[in-house]
């Protein structure tokens, strides 16, 4: 189902949770709302569900305005962060609840419940109560319950926040597969970047009640449209005066232009590692941190400190050692503009033609 939101506003007391938010979601898409806590993501989700009323703005499902419809009539499924399972009903009872309310015939109900138990891998657990289940199982019951009445929109509020890391990974994959299979339009809220990038078709970065950027994970990562997005996604180092760095310093840059440099933009190594030595400059290793799957390296160039990752397979450097550093690109911004700039020296200044 196609979802459109126009100029949504919501204030709680004196706190403006949502400011002029507008976006469109196509049928069958899986959208992630990503952003820091208190940014307004859950408020947007709850307004889509009808659990909160917007102060102004329109919400349209399939072209029809639904602001005045209560949650009961919107045809949505909602999965809460803390599952919100009905404690005194069995797994079966929980899943069948939405169907009983809609007065489905008994036979059809049984079939649907069995189908969902199969889909969520909970066969054999029908008669158990929520307190007899693990976190992952409870979350799956919450999914099954939300999906039972065949909603046209699935809303998930930080569905994996309360689950341990290992199970989270499995559940993420399972969710992606399941939603692909069912083709149901879904929106989920998370503050976990990896989750959003792995699971979503498109991500919306929400900060202080505003949509900073909407795009595919690739777009968000490679072409951040605002400084906030550039800084929020991945791990960036803030550089006050980027002109100091080799390949970025020339008359073209206005003073007061700042930069964000991601670890993946920085490469370090010995002289022999670089085909284009002229683009590199000398740096000193300041600190190394073991991260399990790689090294986190802090390298200093003059007064600028940069952070990068280094594979465990490569030669290990020691703090105090001198290395060559190549900054591939930087995300630059000043008061009026923001853009990504490649290191100018990366193009060989003297190509040889024969």
């Amino acid at each position: 189902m196609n979802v459109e939101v126009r100029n949504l506003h919501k204030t709680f007391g004196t706190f403006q949770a949502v400011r002029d938010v507008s976006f469109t979601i196509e049928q069958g898409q899986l959208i992630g709302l990503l952003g820091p806590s208190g940014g307004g993501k859950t408020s947007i989700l709850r307004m889509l569900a009808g659990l909160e009323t917007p102060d102004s703005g329109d919400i349209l499902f399939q072209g029809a305005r639904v602001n005045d419809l209560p949650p009961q009539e919107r045809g949505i499924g909602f999965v809460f962060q803390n599952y919100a399972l009905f404690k005194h009903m069995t797994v079966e009872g929980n899943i069948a609840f939405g169907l009983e309310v809609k007065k489905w015939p008994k036979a059809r109900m049984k079939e649907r419940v069995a189908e969902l138990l199969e889909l969520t891998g909970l066969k054999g657990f029908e008669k158990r109560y929520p307190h007899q289940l693990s976190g992952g199982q409870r979350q799956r019951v919450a999914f099954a319950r939300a999906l039972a009445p065949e909603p046209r929109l699935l809303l998930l509020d930080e569905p994996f926040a309360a689950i341990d890391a290992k199970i989270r990974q499995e559940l993420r994959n399972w969710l992606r597969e399941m939603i692909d299979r069912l083709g149901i339009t879904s929106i989920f809220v998370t503050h976990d970047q990896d989750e959003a990038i792995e699971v979503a078709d498109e991500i919306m970065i929400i900060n202080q009640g505003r949509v900073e950027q909407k795009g595919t994970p690739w777009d968000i990562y490679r072409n951040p449209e605002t400084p906030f997005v550039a800084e929020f996604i991945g791990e960036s180092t803030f550089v006050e005066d980027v002109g100091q760095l080799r390949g970025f310093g020339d008359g073209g840059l206005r003073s007061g232009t700042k930069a964000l440099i991601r670890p993946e933009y920085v490469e370090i190594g010995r002289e022999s590692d670089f085909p284009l030595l002229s683009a590199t400059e000398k740096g000193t290793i300041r600190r190394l941190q073991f991260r399990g799957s790689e090294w986190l390296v802090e390298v200093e160039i003059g007064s600028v400190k940069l952070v990068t990752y280094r594979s465990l397979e490569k030669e290990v450097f020691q703090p105090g050692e001198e290395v060559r550093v190549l900054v591939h690109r930087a995300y630059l911004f000043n008061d009026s503009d923001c853009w990504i700039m490649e290191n100018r020296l990366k193009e060989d200044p003297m190509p040889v033609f024969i």
Partner: protein
Amino acid sequence: MRRLWIGLTTLVFALLLVTPLARIAIGAWDDGWSGFWDGLTRPEARHALWMTFLVVVVVTAVNALFGVMMAMYLVRAGWLGKRLKQLLNSIVDLPFAVSPVIGGLMIVLLLGPDTVIGSLLDPLGVKVVYAFPGMVIATLFVTFPLIVREVMPVLQEIGSQQEEAAATLGAYAWTTFWRVTWPSIRWSVIYGVVLTVARAIGEFGAVLVVSGNIMGKTQTATNLVYQDVENFNLTAANAVALVLAASSILLLLFMEWAKSRKERQA
């Protein structure tokens, strides 16, 4: 040393509770079985016990309904202004702070035959003060906080998410209440009901003022005991008092059972 303190505490409680009860029991049989039986079955005693019973039934039913509703509004209604909620909250606690006699007087002053409301209802044949309705109102006033205060913390603890989930699944107010909220608050309500019954049985001051204590018409069991003591009819007083005490003990046992069910459910 600890044994000494335990022994001492038990002795104090025995003196305060057990001895008077034992004395009432013995006193009721001062004139043997016939004395006890006469004390209970005289017309004013039968009427008084019946009055107490009626008042308790009506008060419990009304309080169960409105008490649960009030608790739901105070905890769940986001649309009620904060100030209004605070005001309602204080009003709910008012009966605890005010002496029951003052409460009864309040009702006489508001609804008595000389007041606006009283004189409106009187020609219609509805007497409030010095009649059954007044007694019910007085007892309602005194017992109102009990169910509300039992249910409110439970509602706060279980949170509104389960109810929101039910709403997203298509359940409207009554279905949600009956299938989702009620099973969670059931034992708290029962516990509150038991407290209400116990309190209503024992109510003395408010009902005394409002009912006028008209023997055979508006006298409750507690007021009858008072009257008997005043008239030095101690055997009869003890008989009725014993019945009241026995019901209270039964209620207490039921209360303990309900509490254990409530805690087990939590």
